[in-house]
């Protein structure tokens, strides 16, 4: 039997990996939008805070962030609860993984969204405000639909890097595809086959994402003339 029946287990791990990746993407988009708004805000402290966030996060490896946040936050919680005299809860590793990856890629998204918002002509937003729209409505109706086109190429790249970074979450104890592969490797004694399968799974995820995002890019570029060489 192929991999001694370990394939279903690896597929289950894949589903968990995808769940982590998609949830982390949502977190990173929210953080990225907030970061971009802070960075472009007239308030100096906010702009500075966003600058520090995007610089420091992008200057340190994902793995170090994961270890620092997972073990660090767990210790903070332990100490806090010990002082209160309560029993400390264990952090859910799914939640921890999603938050950590979301936090890291929020920094990359900050740069993506800042560039995209700046690419939309300012007059567009001013016209929306002049019509009496609220700033939120201006963002949703005017800025957002136009910035998507500029954000997509870099967004796609961030997503692909994020998916590949998700392979690291087994380090903080998540039962993901790499963790399952590790178990399967030890039992089947076929490490090459196991990791080749995992590699193919990741390749399938990145290929499908790439195709889908290319389509989306086309969709959001309707009416824009391509440069003809």
């Amino acid at each position, binding site marked *: 039997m192929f991999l001694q029946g370990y394939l279903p287990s690896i597929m289950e791990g894949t589903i968990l990996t995808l769940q982590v990746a998609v949830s982390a993407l949502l977190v990173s988009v929210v953080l990225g939008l907030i970061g971009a708004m802070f960075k472009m805000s007239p308030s100096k402290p906010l702009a500075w805070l966003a600058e520090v966030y995007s610089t420091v996060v992008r200057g*340190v490896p994902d*793995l170090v962030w994961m*270890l620092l946040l997972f*073990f660090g936050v767990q*210790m903070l919680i332990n100490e806090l609860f010990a002082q209160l005299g309560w029993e400390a809860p264990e952090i859910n590793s799914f939640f921890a993984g999603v938050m950590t990856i979301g936090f890291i890629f929020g920094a990359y998204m900050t740069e993506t969204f800042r560039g995209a918002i700046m690419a939309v002509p300012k007059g567009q937003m001013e016209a929306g405000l002049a019509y009496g729209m609220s700033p939120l409505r201006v963002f949703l109706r005017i800025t957002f639909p136009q910035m998507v086109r500029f954000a997509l190429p870099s967004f796609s790249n961030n997503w692909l890097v994020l998916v590949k970074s*998700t392979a690291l979450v087994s380090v903080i104890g998540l039962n993901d595809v*790499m963790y399952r*592969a590790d178990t399967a490797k030890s039992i089947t004694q076929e490490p090459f086959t196991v990791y080749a399968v995992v590699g193919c799974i*990741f390749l399938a995820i990145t290929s499908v994402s790439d195709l889908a995002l290319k389509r989306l890019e086309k969709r959001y570029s309707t009416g824009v003339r391509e440069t003809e060489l």
Partner: protein
Amino acid sequence: MIDLNLIIERFPAFLGGTDGAPIMSTSDGLQLTLELLGLSLVFGLLLAVPMALMLVSRNKWVARPVWLYTYVFRGTPLLVQLFIIYYGLSQFDWVRDSWAWEYLREAYVCAILAFTLNTAAYTTEILAGQIRNTHYGEIEAAKAMGMGKWLMMRRIVIPSALRRALPAYSNEVVMMMQSTSIAGLVTLADLTGVARRVFSDTYMPFEPFLTVAGIYLVMTFALVWLFKKAEQRWLAYLAPRKH
């Protein structure tokens, strides 16, 4: 809350001073990280230049294999590539029986091999993109001077593409520097590996991981600064006019 004494006491470990030995007495920590990075970048670039030329070739039998190579290596996590090489190769008897097994069983060699193949794939794409963007005037001028294909490649196309690839390549180098942090997952004591060792000794997470984060941050800034200097030197002709 953060124990500064612990940071000071353990700091030599990140510079090769493991177990109370003076710094640089072992290659653990910073030195190993720099070795892994430096060697894989050099080998990666040496592989990338010919592969980029193959990738832009009009002959699809030359271009397709390179395309497939970069597609596979850019589409899968580096960690999986590292595990395939480090754990995977032992599955085959012919690998274990070969002369190469002596080297391939070493985590150090496997890490350099995985990092080299990975960075070569990204660098190939960066270079090929720049070769395709070579201004047609440069090619026409080379042809008008009577240069043959290889002379033109060697004197005009490759130097010009390498220069223009600098900004994108600097990103790749920074990414690669950070990627070396996974070497610890195959037993190597690179910077992150040392930090994990200190953590498992002391159960103090902030001190070792903040220290190592600081070191990586400084290295990132140093690399960015170096590449900025390199761009000023070799890309001056593309800089915006100052007067």
